[in-house]
């Protein structure tokens, strides 16, 4: 039985909303559970501090949840807004849902790590709890950056008028943009969380190194986001470049493949870069004299770990511009 366009748009809106909240619920739940587990451990070590640790746990969980709240916002918008009935609205709605849903996974898990480390750190070293809370807030806020990129892509998809573009390659470009930014945000959120966890741990081990530890944490987190930025770049190109109309099947598939290639290719490097940053921050806290050497080694190692993300970017750009 053939349905009209309006029905299909409604179908896309409903399934997009479902995917946004379904995928978006994965990460934050894991992160918050990790935080609560660490808080339990912390309270059993130092029961006198249970009030402070409880507060820190709640604050950390609230930040870890913000990525899921972004997903909730997008899901609500998809469910309750009335959309124009145009063929291209179908990929737009699906792409917006996928982008935000997948994009919330990494940031949710990642922001749970520093919150957990801050709880155990407070139990170990109650005197630095103020500094630890500040560091945890900065670290987990930076973890949210990839989720914010995914949210921005969803918003741009929802609020840009694609009705004048040709249907045939544009549907794939839109879907590819959503997939690229969504998958691309997973690894960066996780990796940034690992770095921030090490910094909270380090400050509680050696409070005197708080300043270099926070600085190197910011650097390490910035480098973990690089592949998410490549994914953002690819989805911007896919959204804003005008593609000529075509009847062939190859050009739209190339655009879809470009989104998939960059998105999935960004997951691994970002987690690897996160490991490099985590270890560097960990050892800076124990070996304060060699901050410069450790930072340089971290950056060189991260650059090598990131090269596979660079290969994905090159292939994605070839798929968009050459094929």
């Amino acid at each position, binding site marked *: 039985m053939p349905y009209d366009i309006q029905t299909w748009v409604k179908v896309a809106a409903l399934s997009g909303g479902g995917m946004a909240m379904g995928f978006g619920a994965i990460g934050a739940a894991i992160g918050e559970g990790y935080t609560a587990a660490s808080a339990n451990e912390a309270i059993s070590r130092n029961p006198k501090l249970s009030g402070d640790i409880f507060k820190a746990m709640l604050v950390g969980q609230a930040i870890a949840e913000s990525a899921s709240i972004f997903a909730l916002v997008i899901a609500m*918008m998809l469910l309750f807004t009335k959309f124009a009935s145009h063929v291209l609205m179908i990929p737009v709605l699906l792409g917006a849902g996928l982008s935000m849903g997948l994009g919330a996974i990494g940031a949710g898990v990642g922001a749970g790590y520093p919150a957990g480390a801050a709880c155990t750190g407070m139990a170990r070293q109650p005197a630095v709890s103020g500094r630890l809370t500040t560091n945890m807030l*900065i670290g987990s*806020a*930076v973890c949210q*950056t990839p989720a*914010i*990129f995914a*949210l*921005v892509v969803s*918003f*741009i998809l929802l*609020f*840009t008028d694609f009705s004048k573009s040709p249907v045939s390659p544009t549907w794939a470009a839109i879907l590819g943009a959503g997939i690229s930014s969504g998958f691309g945000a997973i690894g960066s959120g996780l990796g940034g969380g690992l770095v921030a966890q090490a910094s909270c741990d380090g400050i509680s081990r050696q409070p005197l190194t708080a300043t*270099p530890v926070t*600085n190197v944490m*910011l*650097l390490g987190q*910035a480098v973990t*986001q*690089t592949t998410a*930025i*490549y994914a*953002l*770049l690819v989805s911007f190109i896919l959204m804003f470049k005008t593609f000529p109309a075509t009847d062939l099947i190859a050009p739209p598939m190339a655009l879809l493949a470009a989104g998939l290639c960059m998105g999935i290719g960004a997951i691994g490097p970002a987690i690897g870069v996160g490991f490099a940053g985590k270890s560097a921050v960990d050892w800076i806290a124990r070996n304060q004299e060699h*901050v*410069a050497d450790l*930072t*340089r080694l971290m*950056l*060189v190692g991260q*650059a090598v770990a990131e*090269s596979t993300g*660079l290969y994905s*970017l*090159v292939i994605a750009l070839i798929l968009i511009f050459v094929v």
Partner: protein
Amino acid sequence: MEDLGKIHQLIVHVMGHDLTFNLELMIMTWIVISALICFGFLATRKKSVLPGPLQVVGELFITIFYGLTEDALGKERAKKYAPLICALFMYLLVCNWLGIIPHLEEPTKDLNTTLSYGLMGFVIAHHAGIKAKGLKRYLLDYCEPIFFMAPLNVIGELAKVISISFRLFGNIMGGSIIILVVSYLTFNIITPPFLNAFFGAFVGTIQAFVFTMLTLVYIAVQVN
């Protein structure tokens, strides 16, 4: 919602080519520059051992960034590069905070601004690298670990420019798009102060610091 892609442009025809000027961006950049010049003038006007409030702020910036530059580059080179690093941070900080004031826009919301500072850092870092190592050693470093990796090393260096400038651009523009959309959805009732505080003041400060530190680190990696 029409604001989403709006850019004020002045298009001038010169010898068959269109030159495009983003007027709003230029005005905002000049506002930032004049604010910084005023700050510099007021902070150094009455220098004394007992510093005034503005002098304290200025000294704070300079002490912190001289320290960071010395850590990364060593004492000798810090004298040369610390003023650049300090000025870059103060400029980006004021740029990112400008959006908090109603009717003003962050210059860093435009990719042209961030890309030019990314390119500036790239050129400075490589110039410093060539001067420190000599041209031959500098070129040989591209052939690490083996000579046919050279094209990928060059792409890796160029990707640094893209990542550093898109990081700042994405964060600031993302913040402003989120503020715009959320204000539209809630009919401008509750959100702007809180969201502006988060995206303008907090994220803006962190991103200005990250951009500055990355520029410094790129110089350090080239030099050492």
